[in-house]
Every structure is written in structure tokens, then in C-alpha cells.
């Protein structure tokens, strides 16, 4: 390579990096403005979905820490969300504490129960672990529906609206200021985690647990930590959920919810923070989009409204099978490929 060509290459790289930085700053700026302006721009209807997506992002990020980054699949995630939700409901009912205290406490209670479940379950791996967590979640579910004195059985518990400075946060427009900032903090914490010693240990365990042990990572300790962290995220998501829907019953978090979050990661892109976010947004909106689409078909299809639940189930299954079979890295990879092919087209 001639010196002139080298110079050109260096220049090109520099402008490329500069442009990339600019894009990134622009993206941050636009997101920040959007974040502040959203409650004033959008209708209650859209803010409802924004809040629900944000809650699901927290939970999906938690499962991502466990499954995507540590390689331990859990089918008990919904049960830990339920622990968070019940903690909020009980703290609210008996002590009347502020959401500023109950939400983190919901996370800590879920983490405690998560560790309790993890200690016996982590003796097994892979699929057996997934099935052990199903068993644990069935047992938790049983406690929620039968410990009448505390959980009020199948009738469940009612949660009073969160209050801040005398204002009742009882609608999506107001709860937005609780849910979305919490989500941003939680996601940022998770993405920073994988630049630390602990996060790197998780990734090492996922990639090859035996080698991880050989380079001096105590497997059990870190797996336990990952389980606890993941349950903490689930608990916080459940706590937010409790303030959002304001009633918690044993049927609020069925085993299908756990499967839903595994599907979120598969569709979004497992083992990437962005994948959890995109997947949660996509999978939360799909049922609603199907409802809108099928309702719009109403004039032409007599039974279009009654088949909505069945179509949702089918689409859910097709998404899981389709992504695992054709695009195992999920929407993240799909978007990345689109972007690359777009850039290539522009260069040539």
C-alpha cells in the first residue's frame, strides 16, 4: 500500500468513526427529547402500551441475564414476577409504604425467593434446570392460590394507586414517570454489568462452563448470583405490573408468561441487550396488532372477532418456530443484516 493510499484509508476511517459518533449522539438526543415529550404527545392508549412494553423490557432483560448471558434457561420467571407483585400488594395493604420503597423491596423479595429456588435447582443443568424451575413455579403458584390468610386466595389482592406528593398515579400518563425511568435505569445497569468482572464471568460460564471453572470462576456462586439478579429484575417488573394493573391474583402470572419471556428473547435476539428491548416491544404489540387487523377485516369475515385468541396462539407459535428455525439470532440480527446491506448498496 502506498503512503497516499494509507492516508486516504486513515481519513476514511476517521470520518466513518466521526459520523458514527455523530449518529450516536443524535440518537441519544432524539431519545432524550422523545422520553420527556412522550407523555404530552401521545394519547393514553399509546402510553398504556409504552408502559406495558417498558415493564416487559425489565422482565425480559432479567431473563436475558440468566438465559442469554449465563446460559441457564428458566421457566419460572413469571413466578418471580408474581413474588414481586404480591410483595407490593402486601406492603401496600398492611404498611402503606410509598412505591419508592416497595418497588425495590419487591425486587429483593423476588431475589430472595429466587435464590431459595436456585439452591436445589442449580444441581442440574440445561433442560433439567428448566423443568426444575417449572416445578418450583407450580409450587409458588399453589402457595399464592391456597394461602388464603395472606394472599386472599383466588380472589387476589387489590393495590392502591401509587402516590407521589399527593398525586395519585392512576393512569398511564402519570405512571409513565415511574415505569419508564425505572426501565431505563435497569437496562443501563444490565448493559454495564457485562463490562464488569461479574458479567464477564457469566459469559464465560455460558460459553463453556468447564473452561470457566478452570480459569478460576466459582461456578455455583456465579450461577446463583445470576439467578438472584434475574429474579430481582423479574420482581421489579412484577412490582411495576402491580401498580399498573392494580390487582394481583394467582392467575396474573401463569406459566405461559414464562414461555412468553423466553419467546421474547428468541424473537428479539438472545444474549443482546437490544434483543430484549426489541423483542419485548414486538411481542407485546403483536397481539394488539392482530386484534386491530382482524377487527378491520370484520366487514369481510363474519367471525373475525371470535377467532382473535386462536390466531394469537398460532402466530405466537409460528414466531417461536420460525425464528428458531430460520433466524436464531432474532430481530437484532435481521435489522443488522438489513443495515449492512443498505450500507453496502450506498457504497457501491
Amino acid at each position: 500500500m502506498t503512503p497516499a493510499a494509507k492516508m486516504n484509508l486513515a481519513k476514511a476511517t476517521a470520518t466513518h468513526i466521526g459520523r458514527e459518533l455523530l449518529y450516536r449522539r443524535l440518537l441519544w438526543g432524539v431519545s432524550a427529547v422523545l422520553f420527556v415529550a412522550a407523555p404530552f404527545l401521545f394519547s393514553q392508549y399509546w402510553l398504556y402500551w409504552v408502559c406495558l412494553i417498558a415493564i416487559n423490557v425489565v422482565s425480559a432483560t432479567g431473563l436475558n441475564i440468566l438465559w442469554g448471558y449465563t446460559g441457564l434457561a428458566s421457566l419460572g420467571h413469571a413466578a418471580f414476577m408474581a413474588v414481586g407483585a404480591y410483595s407490593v400488594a402486601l406492603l401496600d395493604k398492611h404498611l402503606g409504604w410509598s412505591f419508592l420503597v416497595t418497588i425495590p423491596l419487591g425486587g429483593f423479595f423476588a431475589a430472595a425467593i429466587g435464590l431459595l429456588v436456585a439452591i436445589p435447582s442449580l444441581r442440574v443443568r440445561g433442560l433439567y434446570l428448566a423443568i426444575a424451575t417449572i416445578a418450583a413455579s407450580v409450587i409458588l403458584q399453589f402457595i399464592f392460590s391456597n394461602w388464603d390468610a395472606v394472599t386472599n386466595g383466588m380472589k387476589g389482592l387489590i393495590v392502591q394507586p401509587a402516590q407521589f406528593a399527593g398525586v395519585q398515579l392512576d393512569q398511564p400518563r402519570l405512571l409513565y414517570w415511574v415505569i419508564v425511568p425505572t426501565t431505563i435505569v435497569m437496562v443501563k445497569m444490565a448493559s454495564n454489568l457485562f463490562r464488569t468482572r461479574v458479567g464477564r464471568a457469566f459469559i464465560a460460564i455460558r460459553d463453556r462452563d468447564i473452561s470457566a471453572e478452570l480459569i478460576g470462576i466459582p461456578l455455583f456462586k456465579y450461577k446463583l448470583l445470576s439467578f438472584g439478579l434475574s429474579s430481582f429484575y423479574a420482581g421489579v417488573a412484577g412490582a411495576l405490573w402491580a401498580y399498573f394493573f392494580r390487582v394481583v391474583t394467582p392467575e396474573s402470572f401463569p406459566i405461559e408468561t414464562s414461555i412468553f419471556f423466553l419467546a421474547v428473547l428468541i424473537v428479539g435476539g438472545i444474549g443482546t441487550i437490544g434483543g430484549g428491548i426489541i423483542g419485548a416491544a414486538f411481542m407485546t404489540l403483536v397481539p394488539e396488532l392482530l386484534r386491530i387487523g382482524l377487527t378491520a377485516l370484520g366487514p369481510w369475515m363474519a367471525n373475525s372477532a371470535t377467532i382473535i385468541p386462536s390466531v394469537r396462539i398460532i402466530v405466537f407459535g409460528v414466531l417461536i418456530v420460525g425464528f428458531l428455525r430460520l433466524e436464531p439470532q432474532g430481530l437484532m440480527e435481521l435489522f443488522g443484516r438489513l443495515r449492512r446491506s443498505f450500507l453496502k448498496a450506498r457504497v457501491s
Partner: protein
Amino acid sequence: MTVDWVYLLEITLSGIGAGALMAVTGVAFVLIYRVTRVVNLAIGETLMLGAYAFFGMTSILGWPVLVAVPLVIAGGVLFGAGLERTIIRPMLGQSPVSVFMVTIGIGSIIVGVVQLIWGIAPHRLIPIVSEKPVFLGPAYVSSKSIVSFTIAAAVIAFFLLVLRFWRGSLHLKATASDAGAAYSCGINVPRVYLLSWAVASAIACAAGILIGMVGGISPEMGVFGLSVLCVVIMGGLDSILGTLVVALLVGLIDAFAGSFLGGEFKQISTFTLLLLMLWVRPHGLFGTAEIDRL
């Protein structure tokens, strides 16, 4: 306090009946797991599909039972083979959890399709055997349970014998223990894979008819698959004998828990047992200890 022996006997018999149905379905799990190392959670939904196909042929189209049963079983063979060839085989070798999730996805599609075709309301199958109760000594048993128990026992005995004495079962065993080595010895491994899925799905469809006959059918009856999965894991994922023993045991425990503690204790007792088993002996009662492969 006097013990009501007749009552105990009736509970025991109903427990054995339920256990036999779990054992048949368990055979389908074991067959697929032994050969392809896939835990197929769609077995429960395949079972539901078989029951609904039978319902559609007999109750809606009015075909005779003797035509419908072979057709459902043949349909099960085609369904299992098609599933293996199009979705499962390209996924083999990927992480077991991914393949497990694929089967969950398949199950979800089946539930949706069945709901679209036949609706969400539960149905009853046409009575195949007389509704007249049968008395075993002093204890009352419904004749449906006796017939389903007999068929279940026959199916299991048939598979135990075939796997023990049929020459072709050597192909299956060779493939199960080392697919690569079996392939290099000239065994047509892909065909064994295909066969295991086809036969297992046919068993599941047949089991669906039996279960539907006893308890009626609904799109949610696939949940039964989850209980059977527990049984299979406790018995050892690759052991038909273990499945049989644990299925009868769990059937009995469920029946007693249901009668003496209340219906809501049925599921919890199974899952508590499963958690204990995973803790003490993760590869199950009769399974091979090779859990690290997973």
C-alpha cells in the same frame, strides 16, 4: 376409626387407571428422547389433536369407530414424520433448550388450529364401550377405565416386547447410544429418527382417543403432557420400564392426594415429587446418568 377398604380399593383402581394412561403417553416421550435426544413437549398437543381428529370423524362426519381409529393412528404417523422431517431434523445438534422451545411453539400452533376448527368448548367423545359399571369384587369401576387400562397395558407390553426381541430394535438402540457409530455401521440413522417420531406421534394420537374417552376433550387437554413429562423425568428419560413404574406410582399418589387432601393437591404432589427427585437423583429412577450431555 374403621378403614373403608372398598373406598381405598376404588381409589387405588382409579389411580392405576390414570397411571396406565400416563404410562402410554410416556412411551411416546421416551421413544423420541432415546433416539433423537429431544424432549418433545408437543406430545401433549399431539394427543389432543388425535382426540379431536377422532371426534371430528366419529361425531361430526359419523364414520364408524373401526374406520376412525386406524385413520387417526395413520394420521399420527404422517404428522410425526412430517414434523421430524421439516422442523426437527434441521434443528438437531442445537442446544436442547432451543429444540424444546421449538416443540413448545409447535404445541401452541396445534392448540390454535384446533380452536379454529373445532372451537374452544369441551366435547364428549361418542361412547365406544357400554356405560354399565363393572364391579371388581365389591369395588365399583367404570367400564371405560377398564377398557382404556387394558388397551394401555397391551400397548406398553407390545413395545416392551418389540424393543426386547425385534431385530430392528437393534437399529434403534445403536442409534440411541451413538448415532455417528451407528451410521458408519450402515444403519440408516435418518430413517430411525423419522420412525421414532412417526411411531411416537401415533402412540400419542391413540392415547388421546383413550384419554378423551375417559375424560372428554378440550383444547386444554394438552396440559396432560406436562404431568407426563414429570413422570418421564422421574422414571428416567430413556427408560420405558422406569416410566411405567413411576406412572403407576404417580397415578396412585395423585388419586390418594386428590381424595384425601382435595383436588388442588394433585398437581402439587407430582411437582414436589419431581423437585425432590431432581435434587436427589437427577437422571431419574431407571435413567442413564448422562446429564452432562444436556
